[in-house]
């Protein structure tokens, strides 16, 4: 019962909190995260959305719509290039829902699903940026300098935040 639960307000608040935390974390730890050889990008929004799918059970939350809203804000406020994350975030939600149909979600399978999701988010935004000449980074240096460290950071985030976020979702239901 999505309409009657605290989730109706709790989910969007959490979503925007995570969205702004992404930027703040990047700013506060910019020396460590944006060094020359390895760039780590935090994707707490994606974590919040994926956890939404994992802990949804039979609650039918409008995750794709909220993912698109988060994408709009991300595009306009952070990057200034409209039309990338608006489509990437809902795609991630859709894909995760497809996978969850076949694999029952728990901590370890969630980790694997999140691995796939982060790879897709990064790869799609890289391809889009290359297409509109926002970057001249080569594919190989993207894999080594960006995707690898980003996956490491985000999987660590998943491990740390999985149980706290599950507690939050259970409280909101």
């Amino acid at each position: 019962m999505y309409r009657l639960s605290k989730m109706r307000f709790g989910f969007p608040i959490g979503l925007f909190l995570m969205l702004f935390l992404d930027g703040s974390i990047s700013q506060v730890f910019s020396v460590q995260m944006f060094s020359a050889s390895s760039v780590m990008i935090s994707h707490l929004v994606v974590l919040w959305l994926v956890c939404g799918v994992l802990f949804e059970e039979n609650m039918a939350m409008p995750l794709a719509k909220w993912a698109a809203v988060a994408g709009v804000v991300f595009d306009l406020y952070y990057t200034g290039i409209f039309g990338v994350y608006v489509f990437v975030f809902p795609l991630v939600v859709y894909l995760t829902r497809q996978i969850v149909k076949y694999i029952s979600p728990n901590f370890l399978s969630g980790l694997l699903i999140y691995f796939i999701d982060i790879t897709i988010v990064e790869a799609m935004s890289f391809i889009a940026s290359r297409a509109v000449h926002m970057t001249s980074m080569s594919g190989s240096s993207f894999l080594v300098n960006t995707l690898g460290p980003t996956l490491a950071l985000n999987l660590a985030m998943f491990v740390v935040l999985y149980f706290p976020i599950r507690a939050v979702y259970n409280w909101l239901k």
Partner: protein
Amino acid sequence: MQKFSFNRRLVIIIVCLIVSFALMTVSVAIRNKKSTPPLIQQFGNDIVGLTDRVVALPANGLRGSVSSISELLNTYQENQQLKKQVSELAQTKVRDQTLAKENKQLKTQIKLNDSLTDYTAISAAVITRTPSSWQNQVVINKGSSAGVVKNMPVMSGSGLVGRVSEVNKTNAKVELITDNNDSANRFAVTVSTKSGKTVNGVLSGYKAATGQITMDNLTTKAKISKGDKVITSGLGGVTPKGLYVGTVAKSAGSDYGLSTKLYITPATDLSDLNIVTVAVTKQ
């Protein structure tokens, strides 16, 4: 029935792709041509920027307190070194003031109002940073209502760090010179060599592996040596003359061997920005 649903999904995917690329192309075009984004985007960004401060201010405050504790540890050593520098600095400052005064008097004598070196400064705090690997952007808390205009140069500490790429009412985006896209770091600069010659040129890119700015296509015969200072030349309008960019780290032949390529060490740490200064030229 199965075939129909597959086709529909394919159509949706293709439509999404086309719409996505159309939107991206349009927003890149707007970003390159217009001085401000469309009104709706500006309005949205202002609202988001204001809400972001709820999260960003505590985070930045926390960071400030943590870094002040870690800085306390090497304060003693730093103090010793700085004491030596202060006595020299006072002398330079007095001389600087005298020269500035004289310069002003001379300017009024020949009725020269504003030259290329004149600018006023708007200082702003960095709210947040774009979580992206290729867009090295920060959002600052001053916008068009404070007088910030697109393409103005932005400084931090002692040197140039980037330029304003998008202006909203209460916040603005700054593209850092570490950004490697086609338009981020094309500043007109000049190198003054030890023999007194000046070499003009344009910054051409950023080498992430070494953290150096590059300056390509120089055909000068003047000998540029390591340690020569690079400043903005003020040519081209928006950037005032005399903003410190960095020092020459290496002078080498370019990739095709026809011209000289310079590697410049930036004057400030470009990954650690808290307070920045926007330079406004009087025009």
